[in-house]
């Protein structure tokens, strides 16, 4: 194993990974441990944290705003992921079947390139209740505008649509790349067996694509759970907490009220949920791998 060429590798290797190791320990491991510690304390930044045991967790259980925010977040995640995944998959399959050019594929990912702030600002203009182009069309059709970002029932669906608009193309391109790895012989065999397009999609494409779909799904769920910028720019959690997602609530607790201890507790709770989801992803991906092999 250790040829003469590799004699001094050990020392050099540690030097080469030193910056990454420092970054890993200082900005990933240490903050994770500190975050867990802070969630058991009363910490308001200006004075050192004082240990309060499970107080924050008890408070969390009785905090209606937290549960409300969790509900709002889950509603957003389900909406944006279901709509987003559906459109991404359909778009990817169609682009693949039509053998669409890189230009077409490129145009689809344009929204991914701009920031959430730009997307949110642009859409709040188009959805504006008085001068927005979308409301002008709606008013022509139904006679009355919709207060997209200003109404309790529309705030989350509107934010979900902006989020889907922004990420759909990105997901579609990843799924498209997955489709390209499926050997064409699979489809030729299907065709010889007389399978219809729909049947081939159902029994060939979907199972073979499952590892990719599982990955895209989980990345989207994790990303959606942490939605912040679109909400911050469009509604800031309003009206009346209707779009107060978890990340927004954590931010307000930490930087609006300087309640870092409690904000850390909520982060830990969210973190725990995401870990469970990540774990499920690994199970899901692995299961599908043995499935297809």
């Amino acid at each position, binding site marked *: 194993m250790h040829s003469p*060429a590799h004699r001094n590798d050990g020392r050099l290797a540690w030097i080469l*990974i030193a910056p990454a190791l420092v970054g890993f320990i200082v900005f990933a491991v240490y*903050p994770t441990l500190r*975050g867990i510690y802070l969630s058991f304390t009363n910490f308001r930044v200006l004075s050192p944290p004082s240990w309060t045991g499970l107080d924050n967790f008890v408070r969390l259980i009785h905090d209606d705003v937290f549960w409300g925010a969790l509900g709002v977040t889950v509603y957003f995640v389900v909406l944006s992921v279901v709509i987003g995944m559906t459109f991404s998959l359909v778009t990817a399959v169609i682009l693949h079947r039509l053998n669409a050019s890189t230009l077409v594929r490129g145009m689809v990912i*344009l929204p991914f390139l701009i920031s959430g702030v*730009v997307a949110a600002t642009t859409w709040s203009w*188009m959805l504006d209740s008085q001068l927005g182009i979308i409301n002008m069309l709606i008013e022509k059709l139904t006679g009355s505008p919709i207060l997209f970002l200003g109404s309790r029932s529309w705030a989350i669906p509107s934010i979900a649509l902006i989020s889907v608009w922004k990420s759909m193309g990105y997901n579609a391109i990843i799924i498209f790349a997955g489709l390209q790895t499926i050997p064409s012989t699979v489809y030729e065999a299907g065709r010889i067996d007389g399978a219809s397009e729909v049947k081939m999609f159902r029994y060939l494409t979907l199972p073979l694509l499952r590892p*990719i779909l599982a990955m895209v799904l989980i990345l989207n769920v994790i990303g959606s*759970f*942490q939605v912040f910028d679109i909400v911050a720019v469009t509604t800031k959690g309003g009206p009346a907490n209707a779009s107060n997602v978890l990340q927004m609530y954590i931010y307000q607790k930490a930087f609006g009220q300087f309640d870092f201890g409690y904000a850390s507790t909520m982060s830990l709770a969210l973190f725990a949920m995401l870990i469970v989801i990540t774990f499920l992803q690994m199970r899901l991906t692995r299961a599908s791998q043995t499935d297809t092999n």
Partner: protein
Amino acid sequence: MITSTIRRRRPFSAGRFTSWVYVALILLITVFPFYWMLRTAFSNNRALATNPGSFLPVDFTLGAFRRVIGLATASESLAEGGSGASLQLGPYILNSVIYATVSTVSIVFFSALAAYAFSRLQWRGRELMFGLFLTALMVPGILTLLPNFVLIKDLGLLNTFAGMILPGALFSAFNIFFLRQFMLGMSNEIEEAAIIDGAGRLRIFFGITLPMTSGPIITLSILGFITAWNDYFWPLLVTNDESVRPLTLALAVFKQSSPQAAPDWSGLMAATLVAALPMLVLFLAFGKRIVNSIGFTGLK
């Protein structure tokens, strides 16, 4: 990458027709907001209210752009329906350029160093360390945000580029993993020939490995730059001073300071266009590469 386009020349079919209609619709929804940004940015904000549905700029003017780069006087701004406030985008653009460039160069470079150690060097503990690094891939960012803010504050780095850049500048599990994959696949022969010629490890890294990995390095750089340019949350936490705040924050502040009753939509759209412009230029220059990068990184 194996390609498997199921291309068969077929005559006109209803399915193909429907598919193209679907694609056209998707492209319309994708591109229209960009056109609407442009159309609004070139409109006179006061005139916009009288003709909101026009598909061409209403009372064409460059006023909105002048307002957001700080060329318009308050009275000019008011005359065109602005709020009287102007935005000096120039310094923010510079901040964004510094933030995105330094972050990207640094993380890709340090990841390449680590990836080299994890692929081309043989040392005890290599697999263990790599496995340890990989666990970071599974951990969502949320838990580290607040403690990292506290750490940056304790280090006295709030409102500095260092504070914005450092937490993400040294370690990226994904970048290391991605570059390692490529380096593992490189043949030993060139490297061994160089060793026989008396080249040291570092010379091999800079002279052979790094140039041979330029493809994936560019991929990661483009994706990293896009992410950093569009970053909002972390800079929001660690800065409150205009001298270091990036463009995304300036835009959000400008949006919030615009009056609720009669927002300066032309100004806002001019500002969003300016904020999006580098990405659009990047797209024009590297479109194909970006598309392939995204597909590729997704497959891992």
